[in-house]
């Protein structure tokens, strides 16, 4: 069991991170203090076009090594310790720093990579070759704030109430399968995608083997990692529309497909037959956050809770309705999304980013997301 939330003001209006903390605080029971985290979007209006690296270091040597990498490949426009405050319950934190980076023009040009490739490559380089350094997030105008503790403690620790974002996702972890560590808390990120997840995917075995055939490496043994790669595969590499990707991951039943109009039926039948090994079976609720909105998705027979609500332009989802009532004073509509029906919030005027300029191999992406070294097949080199 875990708890999650997502909130998105589709008009683009910024909301305090306090909302996200409040939503997670009332869902405290859903975690066990071994992991909490948030991601906020639109939180760095002063640096909207910089890649913001949120870093975790185990020691100063790791920090120096990582900073040497940043200095070499990027223009570092701001490097600062992550603002934190002491909070009871949070101890043993790694060194937390953040960097606002612009890829070095010459290095970028000579690498013949897109800026997105360049950044993910750097993430991979840091995660895989620098002992004790982990990139928590690396997207533009967004950041992940996570650690070992209850989410409201983590939120206060990172002073989230001082940030304002158009979209927030939050997570409360009750790890059952993997031990808690700071980098292993949710959300998991890839550039500006962040994913939080509640559930245990009973089809993990085949999902991971399916992804491995495409080159992804599922090393952490977490379901969340699998969900992140599946989104990357379906949305970015196979260019499926978001709704269809969700239908592939939480497929309708055959009896439902058989009742669809002929053309839709042909699409859905192929989608299920082709992506069957990727179908996420078992209980889950997922929120995928991105610059421009969020998607919440429940498993195909709704074995995990997910409640959604609208209030004006605000769309909110959470594991429990109490979280919604805590944040929204007068929701226009509160509903339980149907099994497998994605709830999509899109901020007006912002494009849906499918990372079209990212061309890295799946194993490189695995390496970037998890920070586990042996995911990389070859030594990583950024020129």
């Amino acid at each position, binding site marked *: 069991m875990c708890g999650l939330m997502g909130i998105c003001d589709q008009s683009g209006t910024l909301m305090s991170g306090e909302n996200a903390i409040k939503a997670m605080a009332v869902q405290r029971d859903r975690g066990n203090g071994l992991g909490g985290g948030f991601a906020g979007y639109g939180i760095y209006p002063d640096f909207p076009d910089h890649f913001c690296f949120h870093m975790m270091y185990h020691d100063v040597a790791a920090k120096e090594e990582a900073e040497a990498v940043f200095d070499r490949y990027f223009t570092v426009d701001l490097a600062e310790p992550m603002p934190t405050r002491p909070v009871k319950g949070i101890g043993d934190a790694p060194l937390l720093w953040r960097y606002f980076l612009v890829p070095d023009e010459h290095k970028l040009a000579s690498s013949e990579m897109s800026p997105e490739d360049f950044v993910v490559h750097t993430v991979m380089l840091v995660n895989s070759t620098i002992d004790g350094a982990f990139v928590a997030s690396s997207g533009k105008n967004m950041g992940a704030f996570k650690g070992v503790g209850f989410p409201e403690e983590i939120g206060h620790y990172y002073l989230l109430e001082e940030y304002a974002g158009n979209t927030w996702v939050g997570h409360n972890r009750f790890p*059952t399968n993997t031990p808690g560590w700071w980098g292993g808390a949710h959300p998991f990120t890839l550039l500006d995608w962040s994913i939080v997840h509640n559930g245990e995917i009973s089809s993990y*075995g085949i999902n991971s083997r399916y992804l491995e055939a*495409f080159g992804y490496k599922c090393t952490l043994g977490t379901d969340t990692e699998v969900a992140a790669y599946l989104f990357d595969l379906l949305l970015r590499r196979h260019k499926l529309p978001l709704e269809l990707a969700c239908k592939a991951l939480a497929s309708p039943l055959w009896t439902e497909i058989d009742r669809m109009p002929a053309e839709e039926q042909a699409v859905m*039948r192929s989608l299920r*037959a*082709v992506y069957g090994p990727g*179908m996420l079976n*078992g209980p889950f609720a997922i929120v995928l956050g991105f610059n421009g909105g969020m998607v919440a998705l429940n498993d195909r*027979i709704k074995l995990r809770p997910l409640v959604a609500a609208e209030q004006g332009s605000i769309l909110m989802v959470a594991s429990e309705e109490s979280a919604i009532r805590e944040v929204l004073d007068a929701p226009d509509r509160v509903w339980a999304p149907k099994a497998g029906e994605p709830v999509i919030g899109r901020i007006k005027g912002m494009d849906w980013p499918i990372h079209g300029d990212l061309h890295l191999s799946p194993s490189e992406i695995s390496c970037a997301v998890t920070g586990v070294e042996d995911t990389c097949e070859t030594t990583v080199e950024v020129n």
Partner: protein
Amino acid sequence: MPTSLIQPEFKVEIDYDKCHKCGRCVQQCGWGVYSFNERPFPDDSKCRACHRCVTYCPAHCITIKKNELALRENANWSSEQRKNVWRQAESGGVMLTGMGNDKPYTSYFDHLVLDACQVTNPSIDPLREPMELRTYLGRKPDSVEVESDGHGGVRLKEGAGIAKNIKLDAPIIFAPMSYGSVSLNVHKSLAMAAERLGILMNTGEGGLHADLYPYQDNVIVQVASGRFGVNPEYLNRGAAIEIKVGQGAKPGIGGHLPGEKINREVSTTRMIPQGSDAISPAPHHDIYSIEDLRQLIYSLKEASGYKPVGVKIAAVHNVGAIASGIVRAGADYVYLDGFKGGTGAAPAIIRDHVGIPLEIAIAVVDQRLRDEGIRNQASIIAAGSIRSSADMAKAIALGADVVAIGSAALMALGCHLCQGCHTGCCSWGLTTQKPELTRRVDPEWGAERLTNLVHAWSHELQEILGALGVNAVESLRGSRERLRAVGLDAQTCEILGVKPAGM
């Protein structure tokens, strides 16, 4: 000199106090065990323990026992080894047998156990929730390509999708058994059951009898090295075409249907003379390498309007590379037949000593195709002694899309595994063409029993899936994480891709 040194294997005991002297045993036995003179007298040497007489005796007065003659114990020379030497010293011939390998090889299925959900993820109750077994057989594209339909929706791009796949309502089909080796009534039973179950039967290499045309959408038509019954009409009638390269019971060996079994109907269907032995060559004489296979696959596709074409092979040592070649040659499915698979007739020495276990073959082929990124390009059908729904579930978890049952299907129709298929005297009327025997199988009765069996296994598979917390069979397929090995060595575990229990 004695005519034979070999004593009967079984003893037929009749309790004459109970015997009605009705003579039904005499009439039922296809092996000619009984003579009748006021009461039945058995000739033990002819008995194969098929239990036809026992089943039909109205007085329940017949008992078949093992003939427990003591030979001096010898752990090296089993009594069977000794008997075989005597037998071959008498006959000078190859020992023939029927059905599958009966030697005590390890069953890896019996060393694999399945997972179940507890607490952290819920099990699903198949009595209350949907539990989906539908499976699509055939080549799948790498991805689904869609385009806008101009009305705000999407549609498949031209040529995308799985249009050529065959829908199966359960991941189980009937294994190829040729008309000739089995009776027409067996074929009819299989075809009727396949239609009712939404699955497939397979003609085997003996052609498609006209009586089965109404069921052709549920029939795989096979093309084997003898090309019996193969013509354009045959190819076009089937739902799919299968090139039979090998059979698990006799890898590297062709087929032999004795002339006694080639009556007029079989002769017409097979397009061969009546009474002549039907001998299919060991290799296809137009397939001496993989590129030849590719040509045959595409010839068959051209001839049939691009129906799915599968390739059946026996599981042998290098099965991973062979299967990879088959998929790259354009096959829509690979049919893996393990070394315990059945046969209508095979040299016992081949049946019992050639080929590798099915479980290993599935694991190796599935992994090889995944390593090469071509697993989606072909389905895997696994066969060769699938004995229960547990075997089916484990085969699927190891990586098979579909399992095929032959021996189990015949058992549903009465087969007792007496291994006398090659004699043409089957008392149960299955592997014979003698009209007085074949009429013992009423196709309607047979279809019902086969339907029952597949339904039963399907229900059990649903229970297994529910316990695993998934509600669609594709979430078990290849999910070896849900298997654990008990009592297997580390290297075998690695080959199977399965962790030992406790890990």
